[in-house]
């Protein structure tokens, strides 16, 4: 049967045979991680390009337009053309910038989100590195986005950029709390921080956590949308008042890095949502006789959640700053704390007799 694990075993077997032929078997422990990291990098690059095309098609569909349709079939190569255009553009360096932070900020924005993808299990055993503290690692590493945004806003030495950076940072840290709190009930039920472990638990339990934890799922999706600075929470980039927010002074490839980072952030939070709440690589109930490989299920669920986040952007109007802060601090945080306590009480009522 074709599964993601079998493919990985096949490829790794072929690679190890090639190492033996080349006489470098002793280096396999170093070359294997390099190859898996490169594969993940390539996958992310292609997938994000596809997502940009998808977002433009989705928005066009919702606004009764056609969307990109000239470059390649169905306009699929439009994003490739855009990437080439951004690369060969003039690199405008405003004179008032702080040279080193101005250069580092786009790299940090890209690294912080890309490193989150490294621990996401695409199928049983198909993961660059399955950390036993996976979920904590993702929360920690994606937190660096705030630093990138603040650095970009500050080093541009532009009032629009500075205000955009501050607003963005305030928004991200406000929703970070509810995002992390919405993950805690899952850890309480499974007793593990490993992403693969959480999927395995859902397999054994026979249900996905979206059923008992629908509240946590809604909080997670809302907070993740706010964390990625996407509409309806895109006040930091509100074009009509702050031009471009923290990336006002950035152009060309440097701008592309922020843009990529934003899309990878959407991919990471959707992937975490799929893993925690939608059963990861597990097939839909009653459909496991189809023998569809796990990573196909994972990608299908991932695209569904990403479509949901895209649909938010094109259906809801932008919130005001005070509404945004009110919603985060006065609504989401209390609800998620109550959700944690309620989960604990319900768990004791159901399984309490078995506990010591």
């Amino acid at each position, binding site marked *: 049967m074709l599964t993601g694990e079998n493919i990985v075993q096949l490829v790794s077997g072929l690679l190890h045979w090639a190492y033996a032929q080349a006489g470098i078997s002793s280096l396999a422990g170093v070359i294997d991680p390099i190859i898996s990291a490169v594969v993940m990098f390539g996958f992310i690059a292609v997938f994000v390009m596809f997502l940009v095309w998808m977002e433009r098609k989705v928005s066009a569909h919702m606004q009764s337009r056609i969307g990109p349709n000239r470059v390649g079939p169905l306009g699929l190569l439009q994003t490739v053309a855009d990437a080439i255009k951004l*690369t060969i553009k003039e690199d405008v360096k405003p004179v008032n910038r702080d040279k080193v932070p101005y250069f580092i900020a786009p790299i940090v924005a890209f690294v912080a989100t890309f490193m989150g993808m490294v621990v996401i299990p695409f199928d049983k055993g198909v993961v660059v590195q399955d950390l036993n503290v996976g979920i904590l690692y993702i929360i920690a590493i994606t937190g660096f986005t705030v630093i990138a945004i603040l650095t970009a806003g500050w080093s541009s*030495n532009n009032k629009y950029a500075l205000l955009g950076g501050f607003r963005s940072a*305030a928004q991200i840290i406000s929703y970070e709390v509810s995002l992390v*709190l919405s993950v805690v009930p899952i850890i309480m039920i499974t007793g593990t921080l490993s992403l693969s472990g959480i999927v395995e638990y859902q397999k054994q339990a026979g249900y996905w956590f979206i059923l008992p934890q629908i509240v946590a799922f809604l909080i997670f999706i809302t907070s993740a949308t706010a964390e990625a600075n996407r509409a309806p929470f895109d006040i930091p980039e509100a074009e009509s008042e702050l031009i471009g927010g923290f990336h006002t002074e950035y152009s060309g490839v440097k701008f592309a890095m922020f843009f990529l980072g934003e899309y990878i952030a959407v991919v990471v939070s959707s992937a975490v949502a799929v893993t925690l709440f939608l059963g990861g690589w597990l097939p839909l109930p009653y459909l496991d006789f189809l023998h569809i490989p796990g990573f196909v299920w994972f990608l299908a669920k991932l695209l569904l959640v990403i479509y949901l986040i895209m649909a938010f952007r094109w259906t809801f109007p932008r919130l005001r700053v005070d509404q945004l802060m009110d919603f985060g601090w006065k609504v989401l945080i209390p609800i998620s704390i109550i959700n944690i306590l309620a989960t604990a009480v319900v768990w004791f009522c159901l399984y309490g007799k078995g*506990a010591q």
Partner: protein
Amino acid sequence: MNLELIQNLLPLALALTLAVAVPAAMMILSALLGPKHDTQTKLSTYECGIQGPAIEGDARHHFNVKFYLIAMCFLVFDVEVVFLFPWAVLFQKMAWGGFFSMVAFLGVLAFGWYYLLKRGAFEWE
């Protein structure tokens, strides 16, 4: 450092190297390959056509203290949230004892939250 830890972290370190090197290389390449038509106006700070002291000039200026306040609140809440993680992992083993300790802990947090709410820390004028 034990060997297992290094083996666990090696792929992450390699991915990190890749993730730093590729964007940096692309940015340097683009700076080398792209056209260079620098003019003083183009390189000056972007002000969107609006003139006056509110927009022009150095950006390192006074800004709303509200941002600082939000950051302080975040710090308090995020530290509390980090304490929740080990508790959540061991939640089933600790049973009621652990639950009531956490209720007391969250009770203090809720009191602080209520205080901030009443003092208007979450109000954005």
